[in-house]
């Protein structure tokens, strides 16, 4: 009882697959079966008259005969009888059908439509035509990805998608990136979007627990090879995300991997190799300048002390060097990558198989990242009604990391800049000078410490799809994401001040997520006017996390790094496991009338084990409407307006990213007393804890002009988040540091613009994509009883205050430096009874005019939130050359450079930046660099102050890609169907006033945005690549 509608459905699916197929530049073989008549032809672009490669040519009334056009646009169809029709379909062009008459040769001119409007995009539990979308979704396709040589999907999104802000926590290979979709909408809980790969919710938080501090994490999304990705869709507004309910408040990133399509197997080999180097070196004092600075710092002391002469004794072999440690530690780093993929299939089976190997050195000595990925996607049609399939991917990554970040003295970046230039690399006896008066040798740390992270990850899913009845389909999939990670850490004794003191640690972690999603899909067209669609389903998902580890100290030698060798096991309490589960029901109804009036409703209800028993389930509804006014009479006839759509959505989503057991309170085991096992309350229970709720409104307008040569779209949104989950600090008298509460609210409002133009067409073509995003974040309410001075301190540098955005820096205002003692006319003092400020001291703004500088003289000294950010991409094509020039920018944000604090203040014997050459030295010096002073009782340098706040705006020539595609006729001679060669430059030029390594910096992934504590620096990369198609 197969119906025609059903066939349509199958055709639709097939059509979709074919589109994929074509996107991948696959070339179908001509399946030639001799019969009555052979038809040949050529398919060209109606306007440019240039041949179209890869057009799907399908003969009607048969099941099998599908071919695609070759380089010249040509096709051959055998087995054709007069009266049959042939359908030509191609992405970005309107489909055309011809009837076969007596002719045997045809020229078909396809009319380009907006390639964007006809494209389908991935949405939650399905696909939709972009023209029918009522939500706000931005899509980045494989062709965009191919222009980069970046190794993870998140960094690819930087500057390429409106409303998506990506910043680097670390420039290390495999290092962490921050991604924010339409701003931060949470305080303490996650601000990461939900990642969904081929329908599977993927773990996007690193499970790493060693090798560094909270601000130098790993990016688990690097487990996905960008070359496997067919498209990335970012769902931004509530209409698109509400179907993911309580995990969707931060947006949803849908990654779709390439799948196979019918046709001859296509083999692609992609080889790239390249070299990276530091984008910028920072200036430090040389040996002579350094010695003077140290002596100066002694002179400034309140009770001058005898200098520690050894350090300034240039004849002492330990202190006679003149080293810029950046030169010693940084290197030109090589990388190479090899990708092999085979995709193809026949009517019953389609497959996509790929493997890749990446070996990437970091610019810091000894840092290296190796990644092997392999993926197999298969789809089987096992009957007219039933399709099954499987996706499985495996990633093995070995990351030889560097403890680069942070302000502790284990940070390589910090010691690189502040270790005195005079210190020798080696001791007189030839061994490494690993530790001297508080300064670790950064080269020694890079070379001799171990920070190894090895992980294996399997992501798999199986689905079955059944055509139940005419318009009704059922799909169910089981999915699994398993990460296992082994980490080793070792700090050898040569890097420690303690004789024979070395320490090591080992952690073994596992994270398993699995679940099932099952849903019915209904699609019905009534009277060629009413389109009705529906989805109804349920899902459950479970998570389990395990970690085991040991720390040890006093290994017999630095060569014995196994924990078995440790003479003291200093921490054996690391045995952690936790579980979390979620149960959900969801549904969607869509309706459109003639593709003109569009309506959509979504609902999801989620229950999470993380919340208090009585507040466990939440409802997340959304509704949206669209009006394609271009279809209206009168407008339709306007020649210059080729597309026009207005859309509006509203809805609510949630955020459940808190600790698995926070609501119940926790007794921690292992709080032992001697050998007697103990337990103690460590988390205060809060049985009324529930998710954060975000209500979002979105208004969008899409316009196309001049046959869609100009496409413009804009979105305005308002996101209001309430019941924020926050670790509220509570008085120590409770016995707890904080309690997780639903408090306060945040608002994000913003505008997004994107403009795509085809400036020139023809032999020389030029396309431009521009996007601009503005987001204004504001904390709208905080619990009054938690405020001190009207705000909540958020880490050392930031505060949270009603009416202000999340990332505001709070501290003392630096107004300059007193040239003379007398310049402090009012006798301003440091604290109530403290000393008066004198010549060479900073001039602090006395905000409350009480003639002393204390806690009450702090104010807002900077904003980390950019005024706007985005990207500009230009594509040029001439003959076989293709050039992509991609700029990325952020404007109006400020950075708090804790790194500049570190390298501009005298702490023990650290080196300084060359700014210190302008320091105040004697009465009358006019400068903005205060005097150097040891043990400064006025704590001038360590105050959080405006002196370390800098403009973080930048424009970056992020990516330049020049590709030459060899003529197929030429490449055929060496047996290749396809041969491309390309060069790519990443981070080529950055225009900025920022004085640190790179303005694309964000030391913490959490709320403490815009802080530069000295992360692993960004690098400039040049890559050469070859793509071979067999």
């Amino acid at each position, binding site marked *: 009882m197969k119906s025609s509608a059903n066939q349509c459905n199958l055709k639709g699916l097939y059509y979709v697959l074919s589109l994929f197929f074509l996107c991948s530049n696959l070339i179908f073989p001509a399946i030639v079966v001799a019969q009555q008549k052979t038809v040949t032809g050529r398919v060209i672009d109606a306007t440019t008259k240039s041949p179209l490669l890869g057009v799907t040519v399908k003969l009607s009334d048969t099941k099998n005969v599908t071919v695609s056009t070759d380089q010249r646009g040509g096709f051959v169809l055998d087995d054709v009888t007069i009266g049959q029709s042939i359908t030509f379909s191609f992405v970005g062009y309107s489909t055309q059908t011809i009837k076969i008459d007596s002719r045997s040769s045809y020229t078909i001119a396809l009319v380009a439509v907006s390639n964007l409007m006809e494209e389908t995009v991935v949405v939650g539990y399905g696909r939709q035509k972009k023209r029918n979308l009522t939500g706000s979704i931005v899509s980045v396709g494989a062709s965009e990805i191919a222009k980069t040589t970046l190794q993870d999907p998140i960094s690819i999104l930087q500057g390429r998608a409106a409303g998506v802000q990506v910043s680097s926590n670390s420039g290390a290979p495999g290092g962490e990136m921050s991604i924010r979709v339409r701003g931060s909408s949470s305080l303490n809980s996650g601000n990461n979007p939900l990642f969904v790969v081929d329908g599977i919710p993927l773990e996007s938080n690193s499970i790493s627990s060693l090798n560094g501090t909270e601000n130098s994490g790993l990016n688990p999304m690097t487990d996905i090879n960008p070359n496997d990705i067919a498209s990335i869709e970012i769902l931004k507004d509530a209409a698109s995300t509400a179907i993911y309910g309580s995990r969707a408040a931060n947006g949803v990133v849908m990654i779709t991997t390439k799948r196979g399509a019918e046709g001859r197997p296509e083999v692609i080999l992609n080889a790239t190799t390249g070299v990276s180097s530091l984008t910028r070196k920072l200036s430090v004092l040389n040996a002579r300048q350094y010695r003077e600075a140290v002596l100066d710092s002694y002179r400034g002391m309140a009770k001058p002390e005898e200098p520690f002469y050894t350090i300034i004794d240039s004849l002492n072999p330990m202190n006679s060097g003149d080293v810029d440690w950046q030169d010693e530690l940084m290197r030109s780093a090589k990388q190479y990558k090899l990708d092999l993929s085979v995709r193809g299939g026949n009517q019953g089976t389609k497959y996509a198989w790929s493997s890749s190997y990446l070996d990437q050195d970091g610019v810091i000595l000894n840092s290296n990242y190796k990644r092997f990925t392999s993926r197999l996607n298969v789809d089987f049609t096992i009957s007219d009604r039933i399709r099954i399939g499987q996706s499985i991917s495996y990633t093995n990554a070995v990351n030889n990391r560097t403890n680069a970040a942070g302000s502790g003295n284990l940070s390589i970046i910090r010691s690189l800049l502040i270790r005195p230039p005079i210190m020798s690399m080696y001791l007189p006896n030839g061994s490494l000078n690993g530790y001297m008066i508080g300064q670790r040798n950064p080269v020694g740390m890079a070379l001799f410490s171990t920070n190894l992270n090895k992980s294996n990850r399997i992501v798999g899913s199986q689905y079955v799809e059944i055509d139940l009845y005419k318009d009704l389909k059922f799909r169910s999939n089981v999915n699994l994401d398993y990460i296992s990670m082994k980490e080793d850490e070792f700090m050898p004794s040569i890097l420690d001040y303690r004789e024979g003191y070395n320490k090591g640690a080992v952690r073994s972690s596992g994270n398993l997520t699995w679940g099932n999603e099952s849903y019915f899909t209904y699609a019905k067209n009534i009277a060629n006017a009413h389109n009705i669609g529906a989805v109804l389903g349920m899902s459950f998902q479970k998570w389990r996390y395990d970690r085991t580890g040991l720390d040890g100290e006093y290994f017999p030698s630095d060569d014995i790094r196994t924990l078995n060798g440790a003479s003291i096991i200093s921490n054996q309490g690391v045995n952690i496991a936790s579980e979390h589960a979620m149960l959900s029901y969801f549904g969607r109804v869509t309706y459109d009338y003639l593709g003109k009036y569009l309506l959509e409703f979504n609902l999801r209800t989620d229950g999470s084990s993380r919340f208090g028993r009585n507040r466990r389930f939440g409802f997340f509804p959304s509704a949206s409407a669209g009006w394609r006014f271009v279809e209206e009479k009168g407008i339709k006839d306007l020649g210059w307006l080729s597309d026009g759509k207005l859309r509006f959505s509203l809805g609510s989503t949630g955020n459940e990213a808190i600790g698995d057991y926070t609501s119940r309170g926790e007794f921690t085991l292992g709080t032992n007393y001697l050998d007697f096992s*103990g337990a103690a309350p460590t988390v205060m229970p809060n049985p009324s804890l529930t998710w954060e709720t975000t209500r979002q409104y979105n208004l969008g307008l899409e316009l196309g002009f001049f046959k869609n040569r100009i496409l413009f779209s804009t979105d305005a949104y308002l996101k209001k988040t309430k019941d924020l989950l926050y670790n509220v600090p509570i008085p*120590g008298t409770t016995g707890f540091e904080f309690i997780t509460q639903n408090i306060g609210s945040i608002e994000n409002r913003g505008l997004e613009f994107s403009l795509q133009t085809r400036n020139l067409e023809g032999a020389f073509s030029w396309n431009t994509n521009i996007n601009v995003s503005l987001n204004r974040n504001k904390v709208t309410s905080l619990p009054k009883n938690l405020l001190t001075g009207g705000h909540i301190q958020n880490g050392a540098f930031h505060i949270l205050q009603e009416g202000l955005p999340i990332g505001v820096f709070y501290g003392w205002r630096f107004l300059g430096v007193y040239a003379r003692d007398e310049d402090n006319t009012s006798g301003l003092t440091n604290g109530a009874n403290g000393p008066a400020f004198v010549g060479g001291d900073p001039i602090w703004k006395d905000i409350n005019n009480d003639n002393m500088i204390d806690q009450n003289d702090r104010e807002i000294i900077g904003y980390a939130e950019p005024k706007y950010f985005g990207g500009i991409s230009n594509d040029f094509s001439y003959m076989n050359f293709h050039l992509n020039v991609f700029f990325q920018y952020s404007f109006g944000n400020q950075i708090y450079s804790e790194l500049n604090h570190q390298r501009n203040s005298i702490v023990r014997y650290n080196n300084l930046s060359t700014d210190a050459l302008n320091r105040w030295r004697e009465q009358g010096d006019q400068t903005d660099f205060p005097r150097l002073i040891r043990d400064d009782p006025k704590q001038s340098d360590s105050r959080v102050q405006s002196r370390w706040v800098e403009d973080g705006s930048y424009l970056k020539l992020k990516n330049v890609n020049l590709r030459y595609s060899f003529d197929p006729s030429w490449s055929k001679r060496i047996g290749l169907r396809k041969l491309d060669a390309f060069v790519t430059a990443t981070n080529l030029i950055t225009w900025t006033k920022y004085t640190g390594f790179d303005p694309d910096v964000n030391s913490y992934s959490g709320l403490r945005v815009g802080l530069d504590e000295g992360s692993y620096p960004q690098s400039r990369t040049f890559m050469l690549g070859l793509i071979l198609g067999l």
Partner: protein
Amino acid sequence: MKNLLKYTFYSLLFLSVCGCSNSLLDKEPISNVSGQGYYKKPSDAQAGVNGIYNGLQALFRQNFAYWGEGRADNIVTRHAGDPAALQQNTLTPVINSARWDNFYTVISRANYAIKYIPQAFGTEDSEQKRQLLGQAHALRALAYFYLVRIWGQVPLVTEPYEGLDQDLFVKKNTEAEVLTKVEADLILATENCASSYSGARNRVMITKGAAYAFLTQLYMWQKKYAQALEMAEKVLADPQYALVPIEDWNNIFVKGSSTESIFEVGYNEVQPNNLRVWYANGSDSDYVPSAGFIASIEPHDLRKPRIYDVSQVQPRKIWKFFGQGFNDESPEPSAGNIVLTRLADILLLKAEAHANLNQPVEALGLLNRIRTRAGLPVLDQNKAQSQFGSLVGSILHERSVELCFEGHRWFDLLRNEIAISTMKPINGLSDKRNLLWPIHEGELLKNPNLQQNEFYR
């Protein structure tokens, strides 16, 4: 139609297989235990009380010497931070020793234990239950006793925090209110704790004797001398406490659990403390004996060479806790126990009580037990008067040497109201209100109902 039914049936079957009930969402903690309803069995109660001791370790790990010795006259320091601030009397609300969080962590754990131990034992009235309750009360009292001596008025919290309906922003209680609770808790401990525990637990857990000893300290602090005598008698009557011979004097600390020890906080290699950092960190410890202290030691005092290296004019480290000749340059944290009270302490407190009650004979008898052990001539009332100005003065001097660096000195000065007279020449301490510590700024920021101690406002 048949197919429709068939496929729908299978789909629904599939759904129901995957379908889950609400119980899916009941996730109990695996490696930790849910806070609500932790106390279920007697073993939970035991672990809960061990958790209080764990808090006590953390409490004294870093700041013990700062509180008891840092502001007094027996030490000098070259170290910035807390040591300098305390010794130079430039205390600020940001120094580490101004934090009281760890005290309240102990108190919170004790409050949980006190509330829930009965639940873990059900209706049965067992010896173990009473012992555990006794210890929990004693540990809470100990924390409050130190709190009052360091900060004066502090909030008195006696219920565990289990939800937001409780008052988070507590106000200070008077010293008398807090000390009344300390007294009641300690009396409860004397009634419930065991006289001794088997094996290694004995002197590192609160016994009846320890509770009496802390009561002695408390009553002395309150100048309730008669009650102090009564409590001290209980300790002295306990046969498990005896003075060690002078040869073993260092071993009270080096080995720990000596017969002289009444209560000490246990530490080991993986639960270390800062004794070495304070007193013997290579050549760079926080504290070395002050010149005044060295001068105050009487000639031929057998303890002197056991306290520091007498061959050095300015000793670089204190041997007392590590043994004579200790010369390990390693600055690693130490595993030695911190002795909070021992028999010599109680003997001398009792002597002090007698002296204050004008019972010189009893006072001198006790004092001379300690002096004799130290190889010093016995004192009579005249000698005490001539050598130390008064009988109480001689006892305080004896405490200063016998109990040096054990965290008693500052409280001895406070108790006898001689802190200002002693410290004024050294660091200019002159204001009575300055005798208290400031409350840490972080705590004031978190609790609007809390007022900074007057001197530091």
